[in-house]
């Protein structure tokens, strides 16, 4: 059994940033375990630009953004293993990993889970039809094109207007494919506006809101898809069916935290985010196990992932060197009136009044609303938002005096207040 103070599961943007910050705090006894043959995670296949404006104040592509962090990790000589898959994490903080070198059993004082998310597959949205070749999640297609250098198809329909779907629409066009339509179930896009402009509008790709795919046709390979408009309850109106010829259907219908390791460690999971329920130290219900990045909740921007992971690295460091018997009561943040979840979900009742950021997502598009936080009925934070949408994560930056109120409160609520 090997021993480390800190084990970081996943060497993508979250794991890299967490490792660097733990190192910079002073931790030297740690290791990153990465299942792929390269550090950098999914960023390696995100070759489009738009990363790093917050972090580096310049616009980078995914691999460039990743490389900056990889270089920092290497500069610090932080130990990492590639091609190493963690297959189990226990609630005693024992880790089991496999690689070509054999079985690795590790005992850790603290663990940061930073293993990202996966794409919701076709089955997850119950699309009926043929089970033929030519149906890919957008990320799989992205890997085939950008890493392997192969084209998954020539005539494409995309279901879902998440960012990867939008990015892939343009990418397929750039490689000579036709993108016939992007079909979105909701009346709004879950992707960023800028991507709708530069990936669809620039190339006159139709974006059809309130539509879904109701049938896929094709014996061996996709030959066409049937789409239909949906009603307010999102049920397809079958009289509106239309068939679109294509050989490929790409799905960009949501990302789900890869929470299997957390579940194996008996970590309490959120029913909304499907990631762990964490306190404001980013610690899960198992003391010493932390989460950050897309395994915790799906972010829109890698810059925010890096920011969150940096914090996780620091908190894990503090945990390792603190007297571990202190345990505080925690208050669960209640989300109401349009707010789906917050991260963190739990606020520790202690006297650390350093500024704190709450991240949250709303459940629908709302215009002219106030985003508010109340403690025992008193509004401690209120900010006007011209528009909030499910596709864009909101952040609430709380100052020391607000944090003090938060920590002392017995009831905390985060909600939207309509201004109409």
């Amino acid at each position, binding site marked *: 059994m090997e021993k480390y103070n800190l084990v970081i599961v996943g060497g993508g943007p979250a794991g890299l940033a967490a490792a660097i910050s733990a190192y910079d705090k002073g931790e030297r006894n740690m290791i990153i375990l990465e299942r792929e043959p390269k550090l950098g995670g999914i960023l390696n296949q995100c070759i489009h630009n738009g990363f790093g404006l917050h972090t580096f104040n310049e616009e980078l592509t995914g691999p460039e953004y990743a490389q900056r962090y990889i270089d920092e990790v290497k500069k610090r000589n932080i130990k990492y293993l590639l091609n190493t898959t963690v297959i189990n994490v226990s609630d005693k903080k024992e880790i089991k990993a496999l690689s070509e070198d054999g079985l690795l059993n590790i005992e850790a004082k603290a663990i940061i889970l930073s293993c990202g998310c996966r794409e919701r597959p076709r089955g997850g949205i119950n699309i009926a039809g043929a*089970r033929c070749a030519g149906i890919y999640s957008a990320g799989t297609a992205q890997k085939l094109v950008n890493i392997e250098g*192969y084209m998954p198809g020539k005539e494409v329909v995309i279901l879902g207007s998440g960012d990867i779907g939008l990015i892939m629409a343009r990418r397929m066009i750039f490689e000579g494919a036709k993108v016939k339509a992007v079909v979105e179930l909701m009346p709004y896009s879950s992707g960023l506006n800028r991507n709708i402009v530069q990936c669809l509008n620039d190339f006159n790709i139709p974006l059809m809101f309130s539509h879904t795919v109701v*049938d896929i046709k094709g014996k061996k390979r996709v030959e066409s898809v049937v789409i239909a408009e949906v009603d307010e309850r999102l049920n397809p109106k079958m009289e509106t069916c239309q068939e679109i010829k294509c050989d490929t259907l790409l799905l960009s219908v949501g990302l789900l935290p890869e929470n299997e390791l957390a579940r194996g460690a008996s970590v309490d999971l959120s029913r909304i985010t499907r990631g762990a329920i964490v306190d404001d130290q980013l610690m899960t219900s198992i003391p010493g196990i932390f989460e950050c990045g897309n395994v915790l909740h799906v972010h829109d921007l890698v810059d925010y992932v890096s920011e969150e992971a940096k914090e996780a690295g620091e908190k894990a460091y503090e945990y390792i060197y603190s007297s571990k018997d202190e345990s505080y009561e925690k208050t669960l943040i209640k989300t109401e009136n349009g707010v789906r979840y917050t991260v963190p979900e739990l606020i520790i009742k202690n006297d650390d009044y350093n500024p704190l950021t709450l991240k949250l997502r709303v459940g629908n598009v709302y215009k002219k609303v106030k985003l508010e936080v109340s403690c025992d009925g008193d509004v401690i934070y209120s900010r006007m938002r011209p528009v909030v949408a499910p596709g864009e994560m909101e952040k609430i930056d709380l100052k020391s005096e607000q944090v003090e109120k938060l920590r002392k409160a017995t009831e905390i609520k985060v909600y939207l207040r309509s201004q109409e």
Partner: protein
Amino acid sequence: MFDVLIIGSGIIGTTIARELSKYNANILVLEKENDVSCGTTKANSGIVHAGFDAVPGTLKAKFNVLGAKMFPELAKELEFPYKKNGAFVLSFTKEGLSNLEKLLERGKTNGVENLSIITGDEVRSIEPNVSTEVEYALYAKDSGIVSPYEMCIAFAENAVTNGVKFEFLKKVTNIIKNNDYLTVECEDGSKYDSKVVINCAGVYSDEINNYVSKEKYKITARKGEYCLLDKEFSYITKTTLFQLPTKMGKGILVAPSTHSNILVGPTALDIQDKDDTDTSYFGLKEAWDKALLTVPTLPKGGIITQFSGLRPHLDTDDYVIEFSKDVKGLYNCIGIESPGLASSPAIAIYVANEIKDYLNLSKKDNFISHRYAIKAIRNMNDAELIAAINENKDYGHVVCRCEVVSEAEIREAIRRNPGAKDLDGVKRRVRAGMGRCQMGFCTPKIMQILHEELNIPLEEITKKGDGSNLLEGRIKE
């Protein structure tokens, strides 16, 4: 000249092939797809029915009860996933009790053991997620579950070990009668002579017979649609949950699979196209809505995939397992629908016996009865993992993260005989891609391994055989 030619390599064809491989005979299996278990066998409920459902006196009843009892032993011998998990037939009304009693009596007549009727509360004490609407249930403790495609592959592999030849992509288009043998013609122009031809062609078994026999059959393809839930929801039930058939038709089951997924289905719809295994919006909805009667808390978000399969249904509602009356040497297995899977081992013994007598075959003295499953890292303890990786480093490379499948397992799936030739073949053998991401992450990796093992360009790698290519070529071309 072959002694025996078997048309079709579903569960009936492969169990018969393996049973006949115990004898000194020259045996060939012809399959129209590129792999075994590509038809009805791969897409059904995977239930080893106890045998209380079939009408006493029918072949269905006879072979079901005999066959089901053979599973525990066979699963050990051929190392395929099987579990005796028990089944409930649920009645949602008090009046249903009399129907349950009729089923119980029928079961007893058929020779099924360990049947009892219990109350709804007793059901829920075993399976707490069962609806509070359930009043009574028939409890069949001997009902089991099996992984049907893995079972079929196990039988096929063992048949090959014992000398049976398999040829794939051989769609039979005609059978010609000769004096004392039959000639089987395939779409690709190839011809095979054999003393005996066994028709195990599933939904096409009528057409195979009708090519040469004056006694015509008509198979109706009856489609059943299913939803499959993530293993995360395996807590929903460990026991197979049937609904008591009502005048509204046969109910929908909620059952665990041998790999801890939850299976919901099947619907029943007669269709024309025997290759049509598409799911439909309304079919999936029907399966789901009816399953909610059994388990009202079924989580729709837990569905990871849907599929459908076709039952080869005869109007007589029973199997035809006999020599053709007018074509010498033609042996028919027609209309083998549920409980066909449970019946298959018993059917195989019966058929093999008939063929042995007909051809006067002698027993082999070097029959190898045991087949070893591909070692799976997800079933290994620490010592086994260390030993496996030591012996072959590919065991340390996890390719499918959801089902924890190593590169070594995938390579072996391709190298076995009959081996996997495409993504679906790999998936059925070692479960890579069967999990919650449904091949999202491992598709490119498995394609690469298939490319290396089969020594064919990546563009020629398919999902399920010819025409189902995954790539359109390289970029920048």
